[in-house]
């Protein structure tokens, strides 16, 4: 039980997917302009990453490992993730149009979000079982959401006209991210 909690905390805070492992930087920098969009993307990532980790784990344990197709994992996982995103999109469109409307444009972006593939591959590397994979996926996605929502909050308070011209735009966002990363380094003391 303790180890399961540790996997989640480690995924969300200690090894934060964005600020410590640099996965999903594209969307982290691109989408964090608006708070609402960041929160929606975060929810979509939690949704997809948890399901993707579960499906990848099942496929790896039941198909890839028994047939010695370990080397195929990158190809299989990226295809599974792409297909999964499509299915989730179609499913949401049919069953709950309201959620689809809120998350719709962000779902396709998740296919090429390296965090999803990264987590699936790391889970396999660590030899996690099914439950550990799901929890690690969920924890990582929560960490991603936390980071992008916090950055969006910081960005909404930056007044660009106060800055020297060369610092405007991308540099100040990266510096904010660096400061957040320093703060998150403090969580490394949590590993018990």
């Amino acid at each position, binding site marked *: 039980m303790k180890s399961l909690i540790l996997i989640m905390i480690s995924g969300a805070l200690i090894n934060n997917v964005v600020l410590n492992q*640099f996965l999903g930087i594209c969307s982290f920098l691109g989408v964090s302009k608006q708070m609402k969009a960041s929160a929606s993307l975060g929810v979509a990532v939690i949704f997809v990453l948890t399901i993707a980790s579960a499906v990848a784990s099942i496929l790896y344990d039941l198909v890839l490992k028994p047939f010695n197709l370990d080397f195929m994992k990158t190809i299989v996982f990226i295809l599974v993730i792409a297909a999964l995103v499509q299915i989730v999109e179609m499913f949401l469109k049919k069953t709950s149009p309201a959620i689809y409307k809120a998350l719709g444009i962000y779902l396709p*972006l998740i296919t090429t979000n390296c965090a999803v593939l990264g987590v699936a591959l790391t889970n396999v590397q660590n030899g996690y079982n099914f439950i550990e994979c799901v929890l690690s996926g969920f924890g990582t996605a929560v960490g991603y959401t936390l980071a992008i929502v916090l950055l969006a909050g910081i960005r909404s308070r930056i007044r660009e006209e106060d800055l020297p011209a060369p610092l405007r735009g991308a540099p100040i966002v990266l510096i904010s991210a660096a400061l957040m990363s320093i703060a998150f380094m403090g969580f490394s003391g949590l590993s018990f």
Partner: protein
Amino acid sequence: MNKHIERLYNGLIKENPTLVLMLGMCPTLAVSTAAINGIGMGLSTTAVLILSNLVISLLRRVIPNEVRLPAYIVIVASLVTVTELLIEAYLPTVYEALGIYIPLIVVNCIILGRAEAYANKHEPGLSIMDGLGMGLGFTIALTLAGLFREVLGAGTAFGYRVLPESVSPMGIFIQPPGAFLIIALFIVIMNAIGIKTRQKQLVENDGCSGNCAACAMSCEERKEEAK
């Protein structure tokens, strides 16, 4: 200027993928802890990029337009797997240092971006040169970032000590926050000397393909602005 040479110049300087187009930020930030890692990652990506550009350029009249993205992803993923196995077999130290980031070359925006923006419209020879130029541009940017971080954070360059023992290195630069700071510094310098980063322009050339989260996001903004 010769068309092939022009492609090289374009990738290395005019449209440098990392410094000007700001693509492939994940590996840039993650593996630039030492200059030698930058070279390893850069050259691996270059190899994949040249081959994927070649294959996609050769197949550009065969792949139907509607399923081109899944087709490209399968091609790139296969090439990455081959590269990964070769690195694991012949360069185990590089494999150890780069770890998870080698399979993640699959989702590097630069590769799908070049397939979409260049290789599927041009002949194989030019596409190879485009891949080479872009790949080397990426390698140089990555090595430069790695070099800065290594010198500041560990006092060494390519493993050799360059700062005197009396200067204690600033460890923060080889830790995660240092990655963000160094890239921020690079962009500040580029802005200050007047080289514009051109993310918006790429979106126009690229036709909003939705390959990369950042590009697709600015697409959405552009569509809203147009309304």
